[in-house]
């Protein structure tokens, strides 16, 4: 079929590649105002071109190495497309002692065909520590997670940085975003006591404004400010660890201002507020893409194909031109000029 051969044209390959260079350049620095079609269109064109070339171009389909490489490239495009349709990318903040639930996810971006089993993911956040080097450079994060098994027993695991928590295909990464939370109990004048926690801004990024607010049912807003002592210092290494930190909670309600130590209470409009303990929360990035493993294997196989082809072209020698140049020298009388042969193997 003539049109199929036209579709397999090397010139079309060049057009597709140049369009992809332009598309990639337009998305430079991940610009959000550029449509994804600048990448999708050239990739689709190249996928069609590759498909046609694999079937019709004998230089490709009669050389096993090149064939493997080009099928690998096509597979990468297809897998990347499947990945974009089924991925999920989100963040969450989870407090010490809190169990994971899907409704914790924030800023969720996901493909239209995402069909993971997020509801099956179970873990409880434990303590965490973060090492800081002199000059406030963040070092290793060690975050304990407790993972239940089928018998209801919990297994402790330390994750952090590139030690990823993978559950049901979902990958949980610790982030720089973490901080303190205060556990409070509201004892209303009428009704039952309620215990909850209030997360404070990221620490030490916002160490100067560890504040938040909360509105008890039927009362006016209460403002909180935590004076926290973590041992933080800029001129030496230190470790952020909520277990070794102390915090005085400043509670402001109307004209009333009171400082609470752990275990102390204050009387507010409609009830009593007790400061139970200082706790911490960890921010995770959540990522899911079912094609990840396949992408890796296909990429490696594609490169092996290219290497195989190269090995054949080079006659299994690193620099065979050394062996061949004599022959070529005899054919070429002049040291300059002459055109490279179009279509010769490189």
């Amino acid at each position, binding site marked *: 079929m003539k049109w199929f051969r036209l579709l397999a044209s*090397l010139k079309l390959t060049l057009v597709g590649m140049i369009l992809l260079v332009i598309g990639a350049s337009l998305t430079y620095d991940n610009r959000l105002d550029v449509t994804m079609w600048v990448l999708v269109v050239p990739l689709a064109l190249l996928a069609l071109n590759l498909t046609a070339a694999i079937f019709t171009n004998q230089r490709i389909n009669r050389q096993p190495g090149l064939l493997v490489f080009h099928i690998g490239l096509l597979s990468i495009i297809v897998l990347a497309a499947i990945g974009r349709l089924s991925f999920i990318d989100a963040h969450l903040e989870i407090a010490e002692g809190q169990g994971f639930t899907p409704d914790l996810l924030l800023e969720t971006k996901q493909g239209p065909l995402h069909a993971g089993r997020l509801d099956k993911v179970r873990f409880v956040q434990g303590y965490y520590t973060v090492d800081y080097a002199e*000059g406030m450079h963040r070092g290793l994060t060690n975050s304990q997670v407790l993972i239940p098994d089928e018998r209801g027993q919990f297994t402790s695991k330390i994750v952090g940085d590139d030690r990823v928590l993978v559950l049901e295909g979902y990958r949980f990464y610790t982030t720089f975003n973490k901080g303190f939370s205060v556990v409070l109990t509201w004892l209303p004048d009428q009704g039952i006591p309620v215990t909850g926690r209030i997360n404070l801004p990221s620490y030490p990024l916002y160490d100067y404004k560890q504040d938040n607010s909360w509105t008890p049912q039927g009362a006016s807003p209460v403002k909180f400010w935590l004076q926290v002592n973590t041992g933080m210092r800029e001129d030496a290494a230190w470790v952020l660890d909520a277990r070794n930190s102390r915090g005085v909670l400043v509670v402001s309600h109307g004209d009333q201002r009171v400082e609470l130590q752990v275990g102390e209470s204050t009387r507010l409009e409609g009830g009593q507020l007790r400061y139970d303990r200082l706790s911490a929360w960890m921010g995770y990035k959540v990522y899911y893409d079912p094609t990840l493993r396949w992408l890796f294997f296909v990429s490696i196989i594609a490169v092996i194909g290219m290497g195989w082809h190269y090995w054949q072209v080079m006659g299994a020698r690193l620099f065979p*031109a*050394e062996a061949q140049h004599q022959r070529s020298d005899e054919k070429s009388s002049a040291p300059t000029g*002459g055109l*490279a042969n179009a279509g010769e193997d*490189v």
Partner: protein
Amino acid sequence: MNAEGFATELPWMWSGLAAYALATLVAISGVVIQNAGGTSTRGGRSERLVLALLIAGVVLLAAAIAQRWVRIGHGPWISLFELLMSQLWSLGVIYAVAYWRMPRFRASAVVVLPVFWVLGSWLLTLEPKASHFPATYYNEWKWIHVFLGKVYLALLLIGVGLAGVMILRRFPRAARWFGSMPADDVVDRVAWRVMMLALVFDSLMLIAGAVWAQDAWGRYWSWDSLETSAFVTWLALGVGIHVRLTYRVAPWISGAIIIGIFVLAFTTYLGMPYVSPAAHKGMV
């Protein structure tokens, strides 16, 4: 310049750069003077001296890197100073092997070695102050990614040497310098074979980098400036190979394409992480 490093890596580094500089001078004098009369000769003695100086440079720079490693507690992964020093070392190692194994192409050193000068001069302008080692750099894939990247850039540099010869041969006087090298069609074919090998290593480098990025930052690709630039360079390599397969390209144009690809790779490697405010910069 900051006093940091004076008692440790700097004397070794200066000695290594001096060895590379001498290698360049010997290579240029060997090629230009011996072939000035138009006779195609290869200077065996000067070539051996160039190789010896290259090896000396590599050994001295290795000592400088080791001294710094001991001083600051981590390898040359982070600052531009470290990356340049490490790059000069790895380019030296791989180019020395190529120089040894490709005797008929040794005259191309007059194009390659000045690139070492550019890098070396740049290195001398930088402060050797200690850098912070981020937590995500403990990942083992970093080693694989960096190793593959070093081989890739060195192969491009070998290609640049051959490309430079094809371009310089357009000038009659310079053509005489390279009389000892094979004809342009052979140089061109070898240059593109080296570029194809570079494509293999570039692809592997991108894969290893993607695995590292997935482990360390939760995404294998995010189109940040460094990734985009690396991808554009990979595509440019592919375009170059396909152009050569599709059209009859004059050797000097072929050489210009190779040099263009090297410039892109060079900018990606040693420019992008330091000029862009994107994620990768935060990671270095």
